[in-house]
């Protein structure tokens, strides 16, 4: 596999959504770690040091994802981990690369939810290719 067993952390409170996307990524050679709330997401990010994080925003009825992202970006050990936001917040917008500024890294992305998995795969490969 070209992905060389890269590890992706998926943070989302909808277990079905996680299951579907995770299995797809696993079938494509990635290892997927799963978290169902922001806190667990941050914990796993710190302990497991994934290569990339897929983050939902609305979790448990608030914008928990933003707090999680903020925490991750505030931790010098893991702040360079690329983050893709997967959220229905973004569903009315084309996916956009976020300008590299403030807490965001260049090429972090917002993708609408539900996500086109082929497209997601391509973006992840591109991103991790850049990182390698």
């Amino acid at each position: 596999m070209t992905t060389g067993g890269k590890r992706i952390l998926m943070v989302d409170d909808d277990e079905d959504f996680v299951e579907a996307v995770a299995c797809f990524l696993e079938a494509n050679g990635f290892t997927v770690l799963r978290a169902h709330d922001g806190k667990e997401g941050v914990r796993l990010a710190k302990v497991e040091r994934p290569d990339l994080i897929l983050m939902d925003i609305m979790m448990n009825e608030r914008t928990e994802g933003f707090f999680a992202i903020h925490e991750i970006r505030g931790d010098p050990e893991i702040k360079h981990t690329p983050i893709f936001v997967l959220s229905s917040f973004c569903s009315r917008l084309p996916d956009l690369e976020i300008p590299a500024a403030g807490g965001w890294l260049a090429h972090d992305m917002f993708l609408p939810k539900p996500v086109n998995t082929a497209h997601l795969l391509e973006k992840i490969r591109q991103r991790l290719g850049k990182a390698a």
Partner: protein
Amino acid sequence: MSESAAPEAVVVIDDDYAMRLSCAKIVSKMGLRVEVFEDGARGLEAVAALKPGLVVVDLKMPGISGLEVVSRVHEIDPQIIMVVITGYATIDTAVEAMKSGAYDFLPKPFSPDELRLIVNRGLERRRLALESQRGEVERALLKRTFVTFVSHQLRSPLAAIHQYLDVLQRLDEAGDSPARRREWIGRCLKRTEELQSLIADWLTLARVEGGALLKERVEVDLKSTIVNILENYRAMAAAEDVALEVSLPEGETRVRGDRTCVSVLFDNLITNAIKYNRRGGKVTVSGGFCDGEIVIAVGDTGVGIPEKYRPFLFDEFFRIKDSGVKRTEGTGLGLHISKRIVSEMGGSIEVESQAGIGSTFRVRLPAWREPADDAEMGGWE
């Protein structure tokens, strides 16, 4: 509990005229007082004078920056809820703003529903904070406006189903396992049911609110309605290892109402009694007469309802989320709808419960009287 004194004030600070105007329109339609300002300086002055419950501020403004507004508002009163409006250009600042204490952010472009959702949630959050400050019961009850909550609840199952189908289609090519395929189809069906019951609940509520009950009142026999419902749930109860018992009185059990609504009422109570029961438990539906009313009691031997939650049980979207309680699917609309139906029919509903032992919901409905009686009472114009 939240008292309904003067409506809370909301301050909107945005240099964009159209944005101010539409925010003001949406927020004032929510029954809240709203004041708009075009720059941070004026906005802050007003915040100090007005002490609003919530401030919405655009992060990208000339003059005092949105970020600065956030921290200055909190110097004035840390209990004021701050919501920041942000475009992609300022999304990094939005995170900064949350760090300096903003409660939530609103990505541009946003819909009226999203604004309403966030304002409601913010104000609810404030009420909860103020309440717990006063040492009142801490509760995780978030009451929301119907449409905003429903749209959020509709989105999640749809996204999950879509994602399963999307991945199933793609994995096909890579050759996936039949077991997984079966499981996912099962999950999709479950989420579809979730959607359907949400929509069904929504429609029933609309029906009740639209006054359907007052318009088409026909005679409905409670005994046969209840027996039919129990019949429908035999299999579900057996699967949960819950026994169903019924002892309805001899004699007239007819009431006046809408057939669908009466079914929905007892359907909700009976399914709850099964869902929130324990293995080996039972559900008992019994009945009697009292002062011209028919009394139906639906009792269970389940988890019970802790006293602190009872005042909220009939609120829309209320669900108990204690870790001890087993997780079940549900919209949190069932009891709210039931209560509405009962009161439209001129009856009442009450609950008795002991945590760990069980609950009994008791419904009283006026017994059917022949139309002749009505004519006498109402008279002819």
